[in-house]
């Protein structure tokens, strides 16, 4: 067997460099988490203790879910040097399509109506996204143009479906996806499952690296990290359980939209970091020509990325319409810009190649925290928008400085 890196003696300087490097990689993320903590602390004080109450945090998590969900897909789109401006309109179209299937095609309140309509929406979303991706990849039409067309097209298509009429009411089972929650015990089960999966993945990586003779972190450090994540998960579940149903002692537990977000985010992080498709998205974003010469089917990668965000848009449409118990044409207006802003605040570079899903999730949380906090403080919606604009530009300015310093 060949000698490996771990067998050669590692000097103290080398080890320090490695440590600083691994921290360096996360400084951006740490700065963002710091910003969220600072914003939370400010609003907690300014609102006189309302902001960090379980009730407000529960609402904040529900408000964040759709933007965050779509931001996970938008990161992959932007990393591969494209953009998707159509998602707000597509979300409205898919919502109306789902409502139409529930109320006109299938019997209202039928046993199977809710899941059939959801499947139709996800299928239509993937198809619509895939078609846009095909136009972009096959005919080299810029994504900006194709999806700007989508922005106009889909809301128009939604209007044609119902002549502008809002579809309401929707199926009662379906409406659980908007504002339902899973109760205290199931929330603990979800938390424990998530923790177990994380611990297993960490253990697998450690064991695999060890088997190949690589240096591994000291067991105590690894355990401390896992324990810290476990504590965070426990705190999250406890908070969600801390918001009781009115006039009872029963906690609501994790909201269904947030549960969906957690599952989607986990899948998307896995896709981005541990699958070929994810690797090709980043590689294509870094150097499209290199991807082509490496024999990557770049056309398929682009089409898949757009089909994926189309499917995510359908899930977002389920949550949004279920929350309103209605599918109006105006839903999802300007959502695409919020989602892009979340991704950009989260460190996704518009020139492609860089950006993480975790960053985009924190970006979405940061924006929603600001908005939620300003509402609590009674800030009018006009100054709210102006402040959000300032935050967006500040975040990108920070990124520019940060990237310059790194080189």
């Amino acid at each position, binding site marked *: 067997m*060949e000698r*490996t*890196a771990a067998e050669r003696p590692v000097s103290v300087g*080398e080890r320090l460099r*490695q440590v600083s*490097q*691994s921290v360096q990689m996360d400084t951006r993320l740490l700065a963002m988490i710091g910003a969220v903590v600072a914003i939370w602390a400010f609003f907690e004080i300014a609102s006189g203790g309302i902001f960090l109450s379980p009730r407000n945090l529960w609402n904040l998590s529900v408000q964040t879910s759709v933007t965050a969900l779509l931001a996970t897909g938008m990161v992959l789109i932007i990393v591969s040097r494209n953009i998707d401006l159509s998602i707000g309109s597509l979300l409205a179209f898919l919502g109306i399509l789902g409502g139409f299937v529930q109320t006109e095609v299938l019997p209202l309140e039928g046993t199977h109506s809710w899941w059939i309509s959801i499947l139709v929406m996800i299928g239509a979303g993937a198809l619509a996204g895939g078609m846009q991706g095909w136009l972009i990849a096959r005919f080299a039409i810029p994504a900006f143009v194709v999806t700007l067309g989508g922005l106009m097209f889909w809301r128009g298509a939604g209007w044609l479906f119902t002549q502008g009429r809002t579809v309401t009411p929707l199926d009662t089972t379906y409406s659980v996806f908007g504002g339902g929650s899973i109760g205290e015990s199931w929330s603990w089960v979800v938390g424990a499952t998530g923790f177990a999966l994380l611990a297993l993945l960490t253990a697998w*990586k450690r064991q*695999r*690296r060890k088997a*190949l*003779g*690589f240096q591994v972190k000291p067991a105590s450090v690894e355990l401390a990290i896992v324990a810290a994540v476990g504590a965070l998960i426990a705190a999250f579940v406890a908070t969600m359980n801390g918001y009781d149903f009115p006039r009872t002692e029963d906690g609501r537990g994790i909201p269904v939209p947030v549960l969906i977000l957690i599952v989607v985010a986990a899948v998307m992080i*896995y896709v981005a*970091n*541990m*699958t*070929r498709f*994810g*690797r090709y998205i*980043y*590689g*294509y*974003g*870094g*150097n499209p*020509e*290199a*991807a*082509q*010469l*490496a*024999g*990557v089917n770049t056309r398929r990668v682009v089409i898949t990325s757009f089909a994926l965000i189309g499917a995510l848009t359908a899930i977002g449409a389920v949550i949004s319409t279920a929350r309103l118990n209605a599918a109006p044409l105006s839903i999802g207006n300007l959502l695409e810009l919020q989602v892009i802003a979340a991704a950009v605040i989260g460190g996704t570079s518009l020139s492609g*190649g*860089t950006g993480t899903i975790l960053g985009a999730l924190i970006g979405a949380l940061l924006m929603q925290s600001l908005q939620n906090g300003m509402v609590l403080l009674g800030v009018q919606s006009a100054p709210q928008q102006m402040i959000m604009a300032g935050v967006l530009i500040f975040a990108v300015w920070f990124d520019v400085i940060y990237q310059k310093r790194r080189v």
Partner: protein
Amino acid sequence: MSQPLVEMNNIHKRFGGIHAVEDMSLELHPGEVVGLLGHNGAGKSTFIKMLSGAYQVDSGEILIDGQPVQIRNPIDAKELGIETIYQTLALADNLDTAANIFFGREILTPWGALDEPAMEHAAIGVMKRLNPQFRKFHDPVSNLSGGQRQSVAIARALQFNARIIIMDEPTAALGPHETQMVADLIKALKKEGIAIVMISHDLHDVFDLSDRIAVMKNGRHVWTGATTETDKDQVLQMVILGKLPDGSYAPGILTSEDA
């Protein structure tokens, strides 16, 4: 002489009305370095891209080990053991060394996920052959020096047991020390029986490293022969004028404007 590893016979390639390559032939033997020379636009890059799979031949045949083969894309070429190191290196700057070496041919775990530790382990092994001092396995390759980037590009070929390596201007972007490193590397690859086609503008490098020289002009073959049979002046005349060592001109080289 032994069975040639590669034979490219009577290759033609047109782009619209332009005859980029016209009736060009070349053969390659195991452990041999062939320097392919010519002006910008002489057709050498186009010719070689038909071997690497970036372009397809219009007419003519390619034989590997005496068997006719179809090379329709870069994957076909790689399956035949043909690896290309492009002048631009074709690296994804935002990915690390292992990700670039395995780009397009990742190692997967049994359940279909990327096996990062296995790829990193293999990357360390192959980089040790090329550049024992190399340590920056976790940096994106944009943080590497020119020579280090060149070794990553070469490692990509070695990792997959290339039998034929195409190098497009391997030393163009390198300093003297790094050029020497690449030269040593080419000599080492030769010893392993790998056949190398080297496209270069640098006559010094070509005379230093190649066993045979092939010259192209205006998409056509001018001359092929052993490096020892010729000298730099003769080669320059062939490159610039298409004038053969005996003072005659290669067939089809003289165009009306040259005459």
